[in-house]
């Protein structure tokens, strides 16, 4: 009989550890001037340095160091006064040098923390995630395994290597062990990666596209009997590449390990691979033969010794923390918690903010982006901002506020702009979308409505204001939605002596 999640959590206490790799968005690589474009033709972004040709000498990218320091500062780390690169030696063709230049015992940033908040049935809870280190390294090349049926190593006849990615600056952010998350371990892991992603995005140091691999997460997990205070043997699940997968990888490992322990088996310290399709993990290489990378200081690079002046200059450029910004905007715009979360999850917070900066009403900006525009974007499977510009949306909202457009007309303008008919002004003039603001025409429609529904009109005259809705509706219908409902209401009530 196997344990379900609740039973597993009752018997065992999970301990997490998370390693996140983030590719920086520098123009050039970590140690050479090769471009870092994603998706370029194979081996078009390589040189003697990143190919490890004899005699080639690396020089560190200054922006990469600054981005790493910024990440450290944003994560409340100390910046090491002295930091060095090391060679991590291994034989595997994804690195043509036969080693990866990384940092070992002297990382650039140490001892930080990040607070993450999760929603639970018992209200919101904050968990502090302690950061062990932030270090600099370089990404590896991409292998293509040919001959095997599945594109995997097993059964492959040979492998093909593209070194465009080899040498792209990579920053690894490692947490200390994260204890006491209990049943919330999967959500805490996800919230941490999401919060980290928001911070990195705010710092503008990375594209943080999990689906393109510019943000990758390794999940370490161990279980110990509840209340034992012990630390169990951990497994490491590699390359978990979406937020949802982080959550599933953690809950899946809790279940797998709990059931192994329950049946008296031992947990093997090993690397496991996350299977995106099934959400399960399968064993990779076993760590019984402890990896021996024979790290030693990189003789071709000199130490990185950031002085206080440099660090303080960088600190001044730190943007507002994403959590603070979220709270500030929520109060400035008076947005309910649920809608704020929806906006953040839809990754439209920046877009809405830009729209508001162009003079649009925050509530309207939010409802247009999350409503109509997102709906069309979902239908077409594209990103909302690819459909229509912030400027166009702001113009449309401003026209609504000025009474030039009704919501119904505005929807047609949005459709027109998306269809490529030009700016909102172009669409309005080409399609002849204009609010009927001519009082004479409106009065005619109002009188018609009253004549058609004399009883309703009588009730309004008698003080039953809500009854006016039916008359307003009739007027709107008669004017094909091109009238401003507020204006109709005003004229109608006045006409009926209210």
């Amino acid at each position, binding site marked *: 009989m196997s344990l379900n999640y609740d039973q597993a959590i009752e018997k065992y206490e999970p301990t997490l550890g998370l390693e996140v790799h983030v590719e920086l968005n*520098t*123009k*050039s690589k970590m140690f*050479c*001037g*090769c*471009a870092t474009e994603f998706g370029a*033709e*194979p*081996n*078009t*972004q*390589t*040189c*003697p340095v990143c*190919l490890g*040709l004899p005699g080639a000498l690396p*020089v*560190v*990218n*200054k*922006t*990469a*160091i600054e981005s790493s320091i910024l990440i450290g500062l944003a994560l409340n780390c100390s910046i090491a006064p002295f930091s*060095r690169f090391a060679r991590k*030696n291994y*034989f*595997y*063709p994804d690195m*043509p040098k036969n080693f990866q230049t990384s940092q070992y015992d002297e990382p650039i940033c140490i001892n930080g923390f990040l607070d993450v908040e999760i929603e639970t049935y018992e209200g919101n809870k904050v968990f502090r995630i302690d950061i062990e280190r932030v270090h600099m390294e370089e990404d590896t090349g991409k*292998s*293509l*395994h040919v*001959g095997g049926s599945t594109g*995997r*190593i097993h059964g*492959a*006849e*040979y*492998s*093909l*290597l*593209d*070194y465009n990615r080899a040498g792209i600056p990579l920053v690894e952010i490692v947490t200390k062990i994260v204890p006491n998350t209990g049943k919330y371990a999967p959500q805490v892991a996800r919230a941490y990666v999401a919060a980290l992603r928001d911070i990195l995005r705010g710092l503008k140091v990375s594209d943080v596209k999990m689906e393109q691999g510019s943000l990758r997460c390794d999940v370490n997990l161990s279980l110990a009997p509840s209340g034992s205070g012990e630390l169990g043997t951990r497994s490491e699940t*590699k390359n978990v590449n979406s937020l949802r997968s982080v959550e599933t990888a953690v809950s899946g490992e809790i279940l797998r390990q709990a059931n192994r322990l329950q049946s008296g088996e031992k947990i093997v310290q090993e*690397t496991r*691979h996350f299977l995106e399709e099934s959400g399960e993990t399968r064993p*990779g*290489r076993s760590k019984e033969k402890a990896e*021996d990378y*024979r790290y*030693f*200081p*990189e*003789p071709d*690079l*000199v*130490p*990185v*010794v950031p002085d206080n002046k440099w660090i303080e200059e960088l600190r001044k450029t730190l943007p507002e923390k994403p959590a603070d910004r979220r709270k500030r905007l929520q109060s400035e715009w008076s947005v309910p918690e649920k809608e704020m979360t929806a906006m953040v999850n839809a990754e439209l917070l920046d877009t809405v903010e830009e729209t508001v900066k162009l003079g649009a009403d925050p509530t309207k900006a939010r409802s247009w982006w999350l409503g109509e525009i997102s709906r069309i974007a979902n239908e077409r499977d594209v990103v909302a901002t690819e459909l229509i510009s912030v400027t166009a949306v702001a113009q449309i909202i401003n026209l609504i506020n000025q009474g030039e457009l009704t919501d119904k007309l505005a929807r047609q303008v949005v459709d027109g702009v998306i269809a490529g008919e030009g700016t909102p002004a172009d669409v309005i003039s080409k399609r002849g979308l204009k609010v009927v603001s001519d009082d004479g025409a409106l009065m005619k429609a109002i009188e018609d409505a009253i004549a058609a529904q004399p009883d309703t009109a009588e009730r309004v005259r008698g003080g039953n204001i809500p009854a006016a809705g039916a008359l307003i509706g009739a007027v709107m219908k008669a004017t094909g939605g091109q009238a401003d409902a507020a204006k109709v209401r005003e004229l109608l009530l006045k006409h009926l002596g209210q």
Partner: protein
Amino acid sequence: MSAISREEVANLARLARIEMSDAELDHLSGEMQVILGAVARVQEVASADVPPTSHPIPVNNVVREDAVIPSLSPTDALSGAPASSEQRFKVPQILGEAE
């Protein structure tokens, strides 16, 4: 005094992908013992106020601006490769290990 065992030498040879005969291992264990002995003597001389160094010249923070310079053409990049295919380096089947 550091010591290196024959097993450790054999392990290093395995990690470095160098095949060694028993005779070579015996021989090299002795030689490495001598080298480590020399290093140990330097360690004795170095007092606590001498930090370990990885670089002979005392310079720090040598950096370059983040600017792209032209890369090799794929043809040049692949010119030294023993084998290539589809504009990629072609390597023999990779055994075991991770993906």
